[in-house]
């Protein structure tokens, strides 16, 4: 691959990314490259530093060392919101919705930013009604069209996750970071969300943390395995799942192949 296309090809790159908590190294010199258009999964045992790594990417934590390059630009020291506006958007391990707003308003809150009127405290709410069509479209994508006017607290867990995804999609992210998108879901929900992610990945890149290997194996193009803050394997599923070090660190007993606890 010619050098000049590298930044086109690699949407996100970290170099020597490190996070220490008072002497404890949670993320240790991680060099990760995420290719544009991939669904890239990050796996590893509990406490490996996955969430910490995500927090570094989205600026919820400041790295101790190392750099983060997004489309070739150094974004290491940007503020969280700035990063989000660049198109790098995350979802949360625990469900992240605005509970006392309607489902529609949740999505609208994300769309609203595009209007550039978010500081206009003198404009009426009706100035936002123009966003409703797009919001309903997004809700339809995740199967929530019938719940638009429902108060979000009242949604069941799985639907909240779906809503969260719709909200994230509203930002037209180029790179989506999903932290355990299927956690806490029943089996039907898991497969639905898996399909959703697959669908959402069209035209964008996804980096996700996921413990459920069924999900990972079915949709991930590439897998990085983290252990004690360092990368121990990186590559396509088929390759990584046979890596003995991964089997030892993540799965344990060598008689099984890479498989989640589920």
């Amino acid at each position, binding site marked *: 691959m010619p050098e000049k296309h590298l930044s086109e090809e690699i949407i996100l790159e970290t170099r020597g990314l490190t996070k220490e908590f008072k002497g404890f190294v949670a993320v240790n010199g991680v060099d990760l490259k995420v290719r544009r258009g991939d669904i890239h999964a990050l796996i590893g045992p509990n406490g490996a530093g996955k969430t910490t790594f995500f927090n570094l990417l*989205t600026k*919820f934590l400041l790295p101790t060392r190392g750099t983060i390059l997004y489309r070739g630009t150094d974004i290491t020291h940007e*503020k*969280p*919101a*700035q990063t*989000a*506006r660049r198109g790098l*958007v*995350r*979802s*949360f391990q625990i469900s*992240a*919705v*605005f*509970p*006392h*707003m309607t489902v529609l*308003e949740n999505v*609208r*809150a*994300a769309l*609203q*930013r595009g*209007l550039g*009127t*978010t*500081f*206009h*405290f*003198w*404009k*009426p*709410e009706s*100035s*936002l009604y123009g966003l409703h069509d797009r919001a309903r479209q997004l809700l339809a994508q995740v199967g929530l069209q019938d719940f638009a006017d429902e108060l979000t607290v009242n949604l069941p867990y799985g639907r909240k996750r779906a809503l969260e995804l719709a*909200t994230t999609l509203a*930002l037209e992210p180029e790179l989506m970071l999903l932290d355990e998108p299927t956690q806490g879901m029943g089996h039907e929900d898991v497969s639905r969300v898996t399909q959703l992610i697959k669908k959402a990945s069209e035209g964008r890149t996804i980096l996700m943390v996921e413990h459920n290997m069924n999900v990972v194996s079915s949709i991930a193009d590439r897998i990085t395995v983290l252990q004690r803050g360092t990368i121990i394997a990186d590559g396509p599923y088929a390759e990584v799942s046979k890596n003995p070090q991964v089997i030892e660190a993540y799965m344990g007993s060598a008689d099984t192949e890479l498989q989640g606890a589920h």
Partner: protein
Amino acid sequence: MQRSVVLLYAVLVLAGLVAPWLDIYPVYLMTLYSFAIFACAFNLLLGFGGMLSFGHAAYFGLGAYTTSWLVTAQHWGTLPAILAGMAVAALAGVVIGGLAIRRSGIYLTMITLALGQLVYFVCLQAPFTGGENGIQGVPRGTLLGLLPLRPDMTMYYFVFALLVLVFLGIRRIVSSPFGQVLKAIRENEPRAISLGYDVNRYKLMVFVLSAAIAGLGGSLKALVLGFATLTDVMQGNSGEVILMTLLGGAGTFLGPVVGAGVVVTLQDVLSDRVGSWVTVIIGCVFVACVLAFRKGIVGEFLAWRARRSVRAQAGGSADTPAGEAAPAAGEAAVSSR
């Protein structure tokens, strides 16, 4: 807005228009309205911004001092002096808010408290505030050089009009695009950040708006009563505005107005009869509010109405045991993280 709400507002405005003809002491009503504006401003921050400030007297007091000083010592017109009062209060909001929003929750509260005290000491020592004496004999002046405000009646309608304006203004702010973002931040701050909102700027903005409106309340109070003193900037005043808002119902529109009405009336009626027990009674109301009455008068009323309509719909099947009732809207409004 619902029909019933519009109707209620119409009735209230009508009542406000005829009130001075009903042998109610207009100075009392004007004081009440000034504090109602103050409480509305405070509620904007607490009820809709999710931030509890314990130093709001600073903005109220700065508004009062600025306006008083400008009309008394600099002979400014009434309206420019009021606007300047709001501007100074807003500026203080920028500084104090800018520091306070570096933390959240009770930390924010303690910081505003301490910085409010700082403003108090500055007002105590600054040359133009008159120290312990305050600024006395502040003239009301004329409105735009036309309408003299000296008579209580004209002043009354001026203050009343401003109260209505502030009230509608806050309704508008809350439902505006800005208000929507604010709500999202209050509901789930990390999520709002991840949607690309620089939440501190919105928090600061609402802080400043609240400070400016509180400053308006202070300016009007100074003009109505003719003085600005340290009482305006004192911690006790910050406590009172909290009480007004909490008692009326934080996060409701009418709550602060009702709360201001109750507290000002209480003080007016009680101070002659019970002397220093006023503080005790205010303290008891505080305790009662926190323990048993967290939604406030208006909030409890709304909740009662909501319960009634739910029961009407569902035929009354509640299988949660007592004591685990739904979190109140008011509580949700107060909790900020």
